């Protein structure tokens, strides 16, 4: 029964901006889906507000709508495009919820659109806790036992059955209010007592605790013939209590017998059938009592998920691709396995390696946040590694994180501290793994650690094995071959061996190479070598036989960007993928190296060869060696994957590796403060006054000479890590004291901070002769807020042609002076009509995808081709427009607004309050959206809706600003008031507004008693908040207001500039009906205007 013939067009819903819990994996799955649908000859329509995705590249769909993913907007797209069907299972919860809303509103029926790959009843059965419990029961399996109680007496009776500890969950309270874990009768009296009061129905759910149980997940596929296969089993290293997204996970399951595994498989199949998952992927999570083997079903997701992306990369079984084929009518046995070609997809992958995923956290960005790992996901990215055993995979994964201290170290913990450290590892934390391993190293028993952490003893023994190998190395510092091989077999890096033997990493490497101890590369083939593999998806291992095939053409190696983190996310993967696509199209043999399972770049059919490897110097040099051995290397791209590959540039070059594009010397020129100043001087450009300091005395001297406020930051960083605006000497001293890693090689940069400057970002290409400005972006917030967190517009809306030309010429001078061959990103600040150069980065930037989408020119592709010797002139008319550039776009060009998406609601202080949402020079956004429209006002409104902060068109606006902003808010607030908004304010701000004739309702500040503004916010009565901070209120009212707004999801604006833009946007929302326009139409309009 092949493909359905009644489907001609399909709308795919993407997942929107990258947020914690819903990240790049949905670009990976969505991109696969679009490719399949196009191959099947269908008309493909896409909606996704995230411009940094590959899936929103115009060539992947027939009509690509970079528009907010809301039911209203998607309905407009349906009305315009009239698709036959919607595929909502590949865009995460966002897509699924949107589809459900469209079904509920009757829009699907109205436009006669069918949902494919999903079934509303099945989704609801899967997602409704109580209904799902029924499903589990009907399948003969168990859920965690629970009892609903209405009195304390009932609660005590229920505990007789459930035993302590019990989870207490009051019914119908917001955000888990009043929930807790009761370990004894006193706890129960306290928590359940309060819970009964909190609950509007005086109702509390008591549930048996499964904390500390073993946690598993099975990834399943089902087709319309009811064929079901398990693609992968995943076991959590961290027991129940830590969110799977925050846990170290292992595939396949390592500590189940066949009987136990088959029991999970049987339950999964029964549940998927009982729920009625239509076709496609789903996953089911289980907990198993380690003492008795009792199995409890936790939950299921009736869609492609983060773990399906992981399972696809872990097994080579492309879940999203196959789910899409199933949705258009194929059955599993009709779909060939991509990798073996000859066998079908209706099988269950067999692994002959171990996969370990480790999460990457960003707690350093949120110092106030509680770092305990709980059932709320907090990690911002992940790295995956494959090895021929667990120890190898684990250690590779840990070094893939690229975080200081992420590799295991072998320092004993003094016995006097054991008790305290043991107490600290009861709950999950970012440090737990290394503390467990070091406690084992210090003689604490596996039994004791199992008792404390509930981590399976098998894993604990594997950590102990690593410790024993470390001891063997330490006892054989001259590294005889058998010791070196043993260490490598268990995943030790050259850097770890250097630390253990007191040698340098390069000496270790020298010894290793002299002994011929090098990794081999094995293939991920879905079948444990039972059949020949035709897809070179490789991973390294210290084993005997390598499988890298000889290649005729020399390879071009593209180094990826590693795990997603704040400041280096999907945007860099986008540039890498574009480079691969352009180079492949031009006939080059491409090799991708990356370790991020979420990405498109690690899809095995993107490049000619994929090496799923850590991006450390050692691992990259070995890949290059393997490629040299089998046919040669043309060169390596380091400028596309962000800071991760860039920081390897010099050492790669020193090792004799040809670097394509901008040279390491040029990179250094741009990043080295003194050298770069020379470039600016030569070009007659100015930077804000600045200096470089390695001590407080030096920093103070600089600040004194250039004047406060100053912007201080460590050199060589991405995402404004550790960047701060310092207004006085005391804070400067605090900053320098806290900055631990200041060395002569890594000094602190001290810049004059330009207040009230317009910040400008430029992405440009330079080939040594010509410059192509990709785009000039004008930030909406003033300088001082990290460009990654700031909204911006392209084309700039207030910069005239002369300013743009000055920016262009300055860009050219810098690109030339630095010696760029490819992409450069420069940040300028315009203050009092003086154009200051803030910084230049000779690499692909975070804004490249946005610039590319907004201007219809794919800059990274051009950068890659420059790297292999093409000139801009040659690429005009194909990859580049025949004439013109992005500096001076035609007036007809639509306005693209980029807005950042912030994760504040995820992070709570140990007291349970959300962290502060103030923006600053340190980047904290996880993703971005693009609003695209003819005029700025609507484009901005779209960007806010897409970022999940829709602006109100009526209602109450709360305004409270710091003194310096009071003058500038009068006009916009009056405008809102004139348009019928009720203005609410406090104290000084209220006085200013009333004196200006604006009707203003005054509410009390927090300490004034009575109903406060926070009460109104929490009650959901406020539609919009403007709160600009004064220096001192970080812990005062301002924080309370912002925290309340963040926790209930009210839009809160913290700068006047953004407020002004919002007022414009509100006008547009009130006056015009939104129109939706595809990228393809935008591009056609722009091209027509360019050629006119």
């Amino acid at each position, binding site marked *: 029964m092949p493909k359905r013939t009644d489907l001609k067009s399909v709308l795919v819903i993407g997942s929107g901006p990258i947020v914690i819990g819903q990240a790049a994996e949905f670009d990976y799955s969505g991109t696969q889906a679009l490719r399949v649908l196009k191959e099947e000859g269908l008309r493909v329509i896409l909606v996704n507000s995230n411009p940094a995705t590959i899936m929103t590249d115009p060539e992947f769909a027939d009509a690509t709508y970079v528009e907010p993913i809301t039911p209203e907007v998607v309905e407009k797209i349906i009305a315009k495009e009239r698709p036959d069907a919607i595929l909502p299972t590949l865009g995460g919860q966002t897509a699924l919820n949107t589809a459900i809303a469209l079904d509920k509103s009757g829009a699907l029926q109205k436009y006669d659109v069918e949902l494919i790959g999903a079934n509303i009843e099945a989704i609801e059965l899967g997602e409704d806790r109580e209904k799902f419990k029924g499903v589990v029961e009907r399948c003969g399996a168990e859920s965690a036992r629970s009892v609903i109680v209405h009195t304390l007496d009932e609660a005590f009776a229920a505990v007789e059955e459930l035993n302590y500890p019990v989870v207490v969950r009051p019914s119908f309270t917001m955000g888990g209010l009043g929930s807790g874990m009761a370990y004894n009768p006193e706890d129960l009296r306290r928590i359940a007592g309060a819970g009964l009061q909190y609950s509007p129905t005086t109702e509390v759910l008591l549930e048996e605790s499964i904390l500390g149980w073993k946690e598993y997940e099975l990834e399943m596929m089902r087709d319309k*013939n*009811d*064929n079901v*296969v*398990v693609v992968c089993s995943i076991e959590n290293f961290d027991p129940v209590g830590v969110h799977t997204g925050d846990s170290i996970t292992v595939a*396949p*399951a*390592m*500590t*189940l*017998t*066949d*009987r136990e*595994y*088959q029991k999970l*498989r*049987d339950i999964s199949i029964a549940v998927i059938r009982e729920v009625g998952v239509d076709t496609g992927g789903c996953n089911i999570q289980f907990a198993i009592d*380690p*003492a*008795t*083997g009792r199995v409890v079903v936790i939950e299921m997701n009736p869609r492609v998920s983060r773990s399906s992306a992981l399972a696809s990369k872990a097994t080579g079984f492309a879940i999203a691709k196959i789910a899409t084929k199933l949705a258009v009518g194929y*059955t*599993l*046995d009709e779909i060939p396995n991509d990798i073996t070609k*000859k*066998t*079908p997809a*209706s*099988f*269950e*992958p*067999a*692994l*002959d*390696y*171990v996969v370990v995923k480790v999460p990457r956290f960003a707690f350093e960005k949120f110092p106030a946040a509680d770092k305990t790992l709980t059932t709320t996901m907090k990690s911002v990215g992940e790295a995956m590694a494959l090895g*021929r*055993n*667990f120890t190898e995979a684990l250690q590779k994964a840990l070094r893939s994180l690229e975080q200081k201290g992420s590799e295991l170290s072998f320092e004993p913990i003094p016995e006097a501290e054991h008790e305290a450290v043991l107490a600290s590892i009861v709950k999950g934390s970012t440090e737990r793994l290394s503390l467990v391993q070091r406690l084992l190293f210090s003689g604490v028993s*596996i039994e004791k650690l199992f008792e404390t952490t509930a981590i*399976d*003893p*098998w894993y604990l*023994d594997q950590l102990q*094995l690593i410790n*024993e*190998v470390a001891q*063997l190395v330490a006892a054989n510092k001259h590294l005889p071959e058998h010791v070196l091989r*043993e260490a490598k077999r268990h995943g030790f890096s050259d850097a770890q061996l250097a630390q253990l033997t007191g040698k340098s990493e390069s000496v270790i490497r020298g010894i290793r190479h002299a002994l011929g101890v090098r990794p081999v590369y*094995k293939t991920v083939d879905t*079948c*444990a*070598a*039972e*059949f*020949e593999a035709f897809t070179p998806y490789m991973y390294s291992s210290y*084993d*005997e*036989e390598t*499988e890298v095939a000889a290649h005729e053409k020399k390879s071009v190696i593209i180094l990826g960007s590693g795990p997603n983190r704040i400041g280096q996310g999907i945007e860099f993967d986008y540039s890498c993928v574009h480079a691969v696509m352009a180079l492949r199209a031009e006939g080059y043999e491409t090799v991708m190296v990356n370790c991020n399972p979420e990405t498109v770049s690690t899809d095995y059919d993107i490049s000619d060869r994929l090496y799923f490897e850590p991006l450390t110097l050692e691992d990259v040099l070995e890949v290059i060696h393997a490629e040299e051995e089998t046919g040669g290397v043309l060169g390596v791209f380091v400028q596309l994957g962000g800071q991760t590959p860039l920081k390897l540039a010099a050492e790669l070059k020193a090792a004799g590796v040809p670097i394509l594009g901008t040279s390491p010397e040029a990179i250094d020129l741009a990043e080295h403060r003194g050298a770069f100043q020379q470039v600016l001087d030569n070009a007659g450009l100015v930077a804000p006054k600045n200096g470089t300091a390695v001590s407080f005395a030096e920093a103070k001297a600089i600040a004194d000479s250039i004047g406060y406020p100053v912007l201080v930051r460590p050199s060589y960083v991405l995402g404004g890590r550790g960047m701060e605006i310092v207004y006085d000497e005391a804070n400067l001293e605090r900053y320098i004291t806290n900055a631990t890693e200041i060395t002569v090689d890594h000094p602190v940069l001290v810049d004059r901070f330009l207040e009230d400057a317009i910040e400008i970002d430029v992405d440009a290409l330079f080939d040594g002769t010509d410059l192509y400005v990709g785009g000039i972006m004008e930030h909406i917030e003033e300088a001082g807020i990290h460009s990654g967190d700031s909204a911006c517009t392209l084309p700039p809306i207030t910069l005239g042609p002369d300013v743009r030309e000055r920016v262009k010429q300055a860009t050219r001078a810098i690109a030339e002076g630095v010696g760029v061959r490819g992409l450069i990103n420069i940040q300028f600040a315009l203050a009092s009509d003086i154009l200051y150069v803030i910084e230049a980065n000779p690499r692909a930037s975070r804004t490249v995808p946005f610039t590319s989408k907004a201007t219809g020119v794919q800059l990274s592709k051009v950068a890659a081709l420059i790297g292999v010797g093409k000139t801009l002139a040659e690429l005009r008319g194909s990859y580049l427009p025949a004439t013109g550039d992005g500096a001076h776009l035609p007036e007809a060009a639509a306005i693209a607004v980029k807005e950042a998406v912030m994760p504040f609601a995820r992070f709570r202080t140990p007291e349970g309050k959300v962290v502060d949402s103030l923006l600053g020079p340190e980047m904290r956004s996880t993703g971005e959206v693009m609003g695209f429209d003819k005029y700025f006002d609507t484009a901005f409104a779209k960007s806010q809706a897409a970022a999940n902060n829709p602006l109100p068109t009526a209602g109450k606006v709360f305004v409270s600003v710091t003194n310096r902003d009071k003058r500038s808010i009068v006009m916009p607030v009056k405008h809102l008031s004139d348009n019928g908004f009720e203005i609410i304010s406090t104290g000084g701000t209220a006085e200013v507004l009333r004196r200006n004739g604006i009707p203003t309702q005054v509410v009390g500040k927090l300490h004034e008693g009575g109903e406060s503004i926070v009460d109104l916010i929490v009650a959901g009565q406020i539609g919009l908040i403007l709160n600009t901070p004064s220096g001192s209120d970080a812990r005062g009212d301002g924080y309370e207001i912002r925290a309340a707004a963040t926790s209930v999801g009210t839009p809160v604006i913290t700068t006047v500039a953004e407020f002004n833009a919002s007022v414009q946007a509100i006008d547009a929302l009130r006056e015009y009906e939104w129109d939706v326009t595809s990228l393809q139409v935008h591009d056609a309009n722009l091209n027509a205007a360019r050629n006119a």
Partner: protein
Amino acid sequence: MNSLSNLPAVLVLEDGRIFRGRSYGAVGTTLGEAVFTTGMTGYQETLTDPSYAHQIIVQTFPHIGNTGVNSEDPESTRMWAAGYVVRDAARRPSNWRSERTLDEDLVEYGIVGIQGVDTRALTRHLRDAGAMKSGIFSGDDAAKSDAELVELVKAQPSMAGRNISAEVSVDTAYIVEPADHGYTGEPKRTVAAIDLGMKSMTPHRLAERGLRVHVLPYNATLEDIKATGAEGVFFSNGPGDPATATAQVELVRSVLDAGMPYFGICFGNQILGRALGFDTYKLRFGHRGINQPVMDKATGRVEITSQNHGFAVDAPIEGTVTAPVERFGKVEVSHYSLNDHVVEGLSCLDIPAFSVQYHPEAASGPHDAAYLFDRFMTALDSAAEKDSK
């Protein structure tokens, strides 16, 4: 790190390829046919499966022994494999049912093993060159010259043409009662199961459905079968070349001639095939794993199956044919492998006989094909109904 303290061991293939590692389990010499299995779980079931007699098992999954050994999961009373090849043997098992380490059991049953081998390289070699004679030599035996070891390996008999049934079958008949397998009520019917190396899950699957199972040795006769009061006959899995199973083929023919319902698994499928007049042949490297997709032609649905076979029936996959032994009437291939279109099941249309090449009893493996035991039940019911008319 027991991985470093063990004795040297060497795995030698008849084509001269040699893999070095360290000993695992018993120390000494063992000879057998090297075959690989891709199951990621179920090593205990695999090692105790009599079908692996005289075979050296290569586990493609690197970590083996993680869940230790328990007394519930074995598929027979001992380990049968001739030898065992793994990459990373567990040092410390962890599972709530674990009673001992796998290493201890390997030593107890005298299974000579090797660890630390690049099992993927070995598997790729066996895939390309085919399953072949091999040997593991550990301890002092590993010290012999490579040439000497290759000669020892070559000297063993080949699996093709080998009859092993007598070695693996029971000596005397015994009865498996439904009441001991969770079935409540009086036994529904009685069947005879010919043990050619039967896994213990098979009589369990029959008994739990209410069948009293008389397990008979490999050399049982039709009279022996009839003496049990059996209403149907089951032929089990087992090792060896079906071309040598002349006596069993004749026995099946007499069962079919007697009009008794027949159900065969694995070796029992090959014997039915030969009884019907089809040929059997040796596969290059066989099917061994628990992820094998099989098409059920009757329903068009796919079953994920547990498989362990080196030989297969040569019959046309498409359509219905008259059995070469014409008196058995029409026959069709009921199931085939989606990986390589090997025959995975036979179904007679005119007589109550069917069989599958794979393992519906699983253990280890998925339970997708458990319905076949119900189908046997139905065949028994229909036959009884016919008799009573």
